[in-house]
């Protein structure tokens, strides 16, 4: 049985106090958490080393200005221990990055939560912070799927962190305003928080989470059905990605796309006029800049089995293409072929890095 740490103040404040405890007692050298940075309520991730800096921390705020997996990559391997409060998909993204040698879990205390979902950037930017979350938390506490979260979050089946040292119980927690339960999943978690407060035996409320999972599974199934018809064949893909403006913002904010220079921005796709002239003669017309759909197919083939469905790509798309839903769906399908779940286990190899003689027999035939 796991141990739970129970506090008797609201969840957000409790998390801040745990972080403060870790800093003040020199258990960690720094904490990574969301925080408010400006008068108008802008948010970012801060690596904080001083207790007083935590006054502006909002570790549970349901927004994602960046997928923290990218940030954890730049902070690790860490010489001094750090604690990071990140969402389950950010943690999964980081695990996938580690498999690609883009970081390390050594010296990182990972704190995550059962996640109610993330509010899209455009909404969170335009809404004052005190109006942003009341309705959201009302629904989260009731175990419902909040209305104003990202489409991919509504269909996310991995809202319970898979590898966190500490899991903050949020979804379905009715008493969230006056108490907070931290599930200590590792010895590291237990020893680091020792002396902070009341410890009991216990774990997450599986009944509540199972009920919530069913709701998300239904949504996910519906998404699959609605996308299936749209994604059918090349024409469907052209319809979805035809309005792409080629900014590649989706790949830049993606926690999995870690390449410093995407091949599609490299010289390998440059052509001279003669090449285009021949293409033009064959086809009568061609789109410039070229390779609009090819880029997305290339990205899918490179990262889809590791896609954690965080939804950053759709949030930054200036053309409002539902990139995240498409990638999440295709990712789930490709990952399933390999019985793979991205971010489940850091020891699990990425499918394309292992060769199994007996796999894909049907293709061989």
């Amino acid at each position, binding site marked *: 049985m796991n141990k739970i740490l129970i506090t008797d103040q609201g969840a957000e404040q409790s998390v801040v106090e745990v972080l403060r405890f870790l800093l003040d007692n020199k258990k960690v050298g*720094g904490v990574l958490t969301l925080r408010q940075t400006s008068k108008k309520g802008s948010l970012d*991730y*801060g690596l904080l080393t001083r207790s007083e800096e935590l006054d502006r921390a909002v570790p549970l705020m349901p927004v994602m200005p*960046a997928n923290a997996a990218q940030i954890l990559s730049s902070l690790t391997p860490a010489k001094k221990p750090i604690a990071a409060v990140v969402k389950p998909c950010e943690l999964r993204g980081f695990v996938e990055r580690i498999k690609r040698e883009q970081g390390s879990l050594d010296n990182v205390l990972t704190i995550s939560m059962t996640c109610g979902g993330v509010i899209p950037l455009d909404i969170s930017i335009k809404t004052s912070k005190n109006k942003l979350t009341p309705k959201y938390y009302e629904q989260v506490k009731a175990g419902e799927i909040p209305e104003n979260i990202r489409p991919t979050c509504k269909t996310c089946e991995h809202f319970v962190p898979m590898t966190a040292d500490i899991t903050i119980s949020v979804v379905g927690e009715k008493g969230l305003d006056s108490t907070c339960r931290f599930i200590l999943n590792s010895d590291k978690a237990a020893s680091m928080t020792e002396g902070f407060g009341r410890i009991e035996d216990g774990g997450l409320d599986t009944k509540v989470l199972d009920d919530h999972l069913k709701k998300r599974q239904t949504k996910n199934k519906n998404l699959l059905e609605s996308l299936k018809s749209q994604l059918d064949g090349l024409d469907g893909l052209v319809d979805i990605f*035809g*309005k792409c*403006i080629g900014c590649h913002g989706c790949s830049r904010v993606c926690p999995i796309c870690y390449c410093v220079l995407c091949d599609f921005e490299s010289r390998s796709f440059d052509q001279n*006029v003669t090449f285009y002239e021949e293409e033009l003669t064959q086809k009568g017309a061609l789109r410039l800049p070229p390779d609009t759909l090819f880029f997305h197919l290339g990205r899918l083939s490179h990262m889809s089995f590791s896609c954690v469905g965080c939804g950053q790509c759709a949030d930054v798309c200036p*053309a409002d293409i539902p990139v995240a839903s498409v990638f999440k769906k295709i990712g789930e399908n490709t990952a399933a072929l390999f019985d793979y779940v991205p971010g489940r286990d850091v020891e699990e190899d990425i499918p394309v890095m292992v060769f199994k003689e007996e796999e894909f027999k049907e293709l061989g035939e």
Partner: protein
Amino acid sequence: MSKSSKPGIKIPVKNGIEQTVRTLLNKALGHSIDALLMPVKVPSKDSYAWILMQDSDVVNDASPMAAGMPVQGAKALKSLTRKGGGSLRVAALMRPCEVRAAIELVKLNQINLENVVLISYDCPGALPLSELSDNFEAAEKKFKVLLSSRCFDSPDVKPVCQFCTGFSMGAADIHIGLADGDTGHLLLISGSPKGKAFLSAAGLNVDEDLSAYKKQVDLILKKKTQKTKEIFQAVQPMVEGLENLAETFSNCIGCHNCQSACPICYCRQCYFDSKESKLEPAYYMEKAEKRGGVSFPHDRVLFHVGRMSHMSLSCVSCGQCTDACPVSIPVAKVFSYVASQTQQAFEYSAGKSVSEAIPLKEFKEDELQKIHEIVKSAESQESPHE
């Protein structure tokens, strides 16, 4: 009067401005040019893409004066001509800011205009990309009204378009004049020998007096200049001092969409995305220990300042950066203001002429005297160290 002072010709509008232009271009296709570069609606009919075309059916499908600018035209021209080669003669129909960007990219060795005829038009502005995404049909309808009624002060176009002083004739080889209010006609104006040759190959001989048209353009320009003043006055405090700059960009998530949508930012890999910009993990911790905390994504304000210092001299105020920003930062207004200041300092105007060198590529002994004086006076006021 010599012919060169009357470089225009008036032609009647038949079935709308766009159809008139399509007919004209179709006639030239296969004769004075081999291909056309124009916006065409994408298959899902909810946006435009740049299409290089040879087929007259495709020309008839094109939207020469598109309601919006999903991709800056100079970027399309860059992908075609950057590596050079070939002898394909292309006419590209673009907005004036796209022409300006193309001119800047020529100077930056990213575009080769040798076989290209640039055609532009009096631009009512472009509708924001978000408006195209929300309801493309409505956006198209709205823009067609602006175009046919020759409206140049619409509050619906992108914020930078509303105060754009470069909406009319610039460095294009041929300019389509629409601003004189004569809705039954349009003017074709040759801006270069290349343009004149193109027109005469189409059997169009220029001899129209342009003074009435120019008067109208000047009137619009005057209003836009006044608007620019007002906007810049409001923007100035947003960029003065580091604190204000940080507040202006405080919602930035570091996606760099502004840079990748920018026609001028041609670097394949921005320094701020490069390996060189990534620092050792210990660096961030040390910095955090000094200051109490560091912000991630890192160096977001520095990114914008860096981008400004690299491209503001060539900024054409097309507004693509704002359209691409997922967190609604008024990037274009800020950059346009800063650009106006830097370009003024060098008496440079981005995209005006290929023959005008980019200031940073030129050394003039007597330039920036003001700064020299500021430094000198600061030095003389310093107390001796002893």
